[in-house]
């Protein structure tokens, strides 16, 4: 089970958080501080897994952003790693070559994506979300004409 998702910048700034297990605000701050200390220190050629407090944190760096997910120790690590990648792919498609600034200024959109991403990808099937994500964002932002998702180009 996924306990939380963190997006941290290389400077240790929090870009996005999502908590699926109950943590108090204080605990959250502590967790973030502790984990960013561990993860940001790791070199580039190491594995994507960190053992932490009996959990595992699966992380991957994309440009200046670290995407981290905390899971139970016996969960399938690679599965989660690809979920992260898929999340990034979706963001990429939505923003068109996503960058950190996109995520900062559109945190609410990502949040939308994120909260249902868990539903659709993390716990749910992943490719089936393509239709949904368009639907979802269309509903959310009423942007049908301008937001062009070309499903044909998605090579999945």
């Amino acid at each position, binding site marked *: 089970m996924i306990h939380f998702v963190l997006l941290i910048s290389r400077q240790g700034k929090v870009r996005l958080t999502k908590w699926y297990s*109950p943590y108090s605000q204080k605990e959250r701050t502590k967790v973030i501080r502790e984990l960013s200390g561990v993860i940001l220190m790791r070199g580039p050629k190491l594995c994507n897994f960190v053992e932490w407090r009996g959990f595992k944190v699966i992380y991957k760096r994309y440009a200046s952003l670290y995407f981290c997910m905390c899971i139970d120790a016996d969960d399938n690590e690679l599965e989660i790693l690809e979920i992260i990648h898929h999340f990034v792919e979706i963001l990429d498609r939505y923003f068109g070559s996503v960058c950190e600034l996109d995520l900062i200024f559109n945190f609410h959109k990502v949040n939308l994506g994120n909260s249902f991403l868990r539903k659709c990808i993390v716990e*749910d099937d992943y490719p089936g979300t393509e239709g949904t994500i368009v639907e979802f964002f269309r509903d959310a932002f009423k942007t049908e004409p301008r937001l062009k998702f070309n499903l044909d180009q998605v090579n999945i």
Partner: protein
Amino acid sequence: MALSGMRGLSVFISDVRNCQNKEQERQRVDKELGNIRTRFKNEKGLTPYEKKKYVWKMLYIYMLGYDVDFGHMEAVSLISAPKYPEKQVGYIVTSCLLNENHDFLRLVINTVRNDIIGRNETFQCLALTMVGNIGGREFAESLAPDVQKLLISSSCRPLVRKKAALCLLRLYRKNSDVVNVDGWSDRMAQLLDERDIGVLTSVMSLLVALVANNHDAYWSCLPKCVKILERLARSQDVPPEYTYYGIPSPWLQVKTMRALQYFPTIEDPNTRRSLFEVLQRILMGTDVVKNVNKNNASHAVLFEALALVMHLDAEKEMMSQCVALLGKFIAVREPNIRYLGLENMTRMLMVTDVQESIKRHQAQIITSLKDPDISIRRRALDLLYGMCDVTNAKDIVEELLQYLSTADFVMREELALKAAILAEKFAPDLSWYVDVILQLIDKAGDFVSDDIWYRVVQFVTNNEDLQPYAAAKAREFLDKPAVHETMVKVSSYLLGEYSHLLARRPGFSPKEIFAMINDKLPTVSTSTVPLILSTYAKILMHTQPPDPELQDQIWTIFNKYESFIDVEIQQRAVEYFALSRKGAALMDILAEMPKFPERQSALLKRAEDTEVDTAEQSAIKMRTQQQTSNALVVTDQPPANGPLSVGLVKMPSMQHANDTNLADQELIHANGAMVLMDPQPAPVAAPPSADLLGDLLSPLAIEGPTAASVSSEQNLMPGLESGPDAVGALALTTVEEQSNSVQPIGNITERFNALCLKDSGVLYEDPYIQIGIKAEWHAHHGRFVLFLGNKNTSPLASVQAVLLPPSHLKMELSLVPEIIPPRAQVQCPLELVNLRASREVAVLDLSYKFSTAMVNVKLRLPAVLNKFLQPISVTAEEFFPQWRSLSGPPLKLQEVVRGVKPMSLPDMVSLFNSLHLAVSPGLDPNTNNLVASTTFFSETTRAMLCLIRVETDPSDRTQLRMTIASGDPTLTFELKEFIKEHLVSIPVASGPPLPAQPPSQPAVSNASFTDPGAILAGLL
């Protein structure tokens, strides 16, 4: 973009981004929060759009880590909005801002339910998503049936059913009762026939949770899972949008195999065969490709398949295939695969018969121990630990030792512990074990916990053959230039005990050993000094004939420490000095340590208790289950008993709990000869290692000098003495701060009883304060001086002492200062006048505050009846006229006392003497009788003569007849009762054998509460 309208939000975000420092950011955030607060206050003016905007801002602020303690209501209320945009924001912000325990969530249960059962599909999705994210127990109870209906409904679109499945999963996790097993298992089987892979994946997530809890009910799902796997593996009927980098839904594959691992076995041969075919295909058909993502996805499936193969305990052939694969993985360049290879190999150890094939990869695993990635190093260490057995222990342990010098600090303690455990478990011979541990201390002393060296001492003590070797090694290591303090401890202990065995060897003469240890003495901390003092005492004992020069040197050191600030050291110095002057008697007192009772290694226990990740734990559990085949682990040796050899050697730094049971056991062994320790657990500093200390301490619990040395000890330290029991307790407990409640040190009742018979000693002690008392008596006047000593380096505050005097005493306590400075002692005189005879006891209600802990104790003051007695010897001429003149009740009372503690006449005489009753021998012609006299002082009676006659029955020592006479009826009665109390249960005898404490005495540590006398006195 459509959100250009949300400009306020963008502006706020860039403002926050532009802040130069944290302080500016906080100011900007505070300003915004203030703004939002005012806006929310006059809600009327808010358009739905504005409300939405502010709620988003709140969420952003919250996400940055600031507390947002208002506006939750606004966020929640948006859920009830009729229009989609507001409702959507309401749902999303609520699920981010609140967690499942938040009260506000209750307010929306109804709205959420209406959305779920409503017709609007988008609303259904929103509601299901939020409940699936943060639904708690209450949601589970009220919404589960509706969600179930949606999931099995044929009219719902897959989009909704997916969310329903995941929502139900959340609700089931919160409250497993929401799914009724009987009806639902058939439904689940039906749901697995689903063609839509999206819905199927969600249903599979649900199934994993269900079978994890109760696989029995879902047997019918098993063949369906295998079918799904077949369908995916053969890529039949998988729409292209459900393949990821060419792999048919890896997520569904992983989940299905996960679900299958919860069924203990697969009985149906056909199903089993089909499954193995699929697994075989996955195992063989997974190639390493260039595309990272494809690689990851295919290996995610592969590793899950490996886990399933291991779980099913497949044929040997398939297993060795797995090991071969893993062997390949641990050598690849890709770090993720290497990590997972090691992790799964550790899991593989649980499968029988593969250890041998895993051992073939030992060299590669050892290489991984030097991997640049700590995650991988940890896995390698765990695997090495798990795969170690008698055949490879030497290699592995030596490898670990070598690695220890270069390992990073975070891993060293674990490394040291594991090396120690392996060395202990699989040592081919004991001397190797000693070598390993000494090397361990030498290389990583800081990371070697006390448990580890305690264990060495234990083994050496229990194996005579090992003792000379250990002593020689200890000397060798101690001789090195820079020695770690732990090494000083273990070496000086071993040398003290066993160096005499090697005394003829060059370099092992007592003098040389002493010189070597004494070199280290100035460098060690106070926790090591007591141990070294014990070693000196042992050296002295073993030097026969005594060497005057050495004796002088050691005595000088004892003398130096006699006034040392640390009580433990001071006490040892004083005791050893006194004892070592006894010459040959020293041999009996400082005998060699008895063998330790053999028990489970506390190290192993500690390793099990340590919070480690599950894989590691499993490896350790496996270890404990494994048969061990070595000489070190002896089982069930009888505990040390037989002739009681008394060792005065105490272990330093006993911060751990005594095993109470063991202490009890040892008390029984003491045969009631003496009890020097309360079976009271010492402050627990490290619970996991309690067992080990049990090992080490149990024989020490019976430590104790013989009666003769007790008295000499008392004579030696009038200031400290408070009865041998208190001394024992003092020595065995440490001044440890306790986390919750303050436990008294020593038994309060026993301390009180001891003080009833003497005039100075310790009345009470706990980790913070020590209360000593000194008394003087003049006729019916008494004077106490209370010594309140702060044992800590910070002051004791709010000190209050209130006297609760009984009616017969007039007492006056001088002012007790409110604060006792650090390490200071305060003297408080207390004057008292005895008005009449009574057995009631005065109580001192003492309270103080240490940091945040408020401590309150009620202490009985030893102003008891016998303190106002003055023994007086009378002649026959004086006695008999008096005796006759006081005829009959109420002035003369006679009683047959039964249940008397059997004691010989001389014992009774000494008891009477200690009660200030002068026994006049020869007055009574019958030698079985005792006649005693005393003078009682009080304000009402002034000096009054009391006469006592006791007639004992030589054939039955448990009963006697007692006659008491005095000029005052109250006095006669009270004195009779008082003496009776002392005869029936003798709290503490002065000289000869101390009565044994009942071994099963419960929680003596709480004596202040369990002692009925104290409670009664408190009520007065």
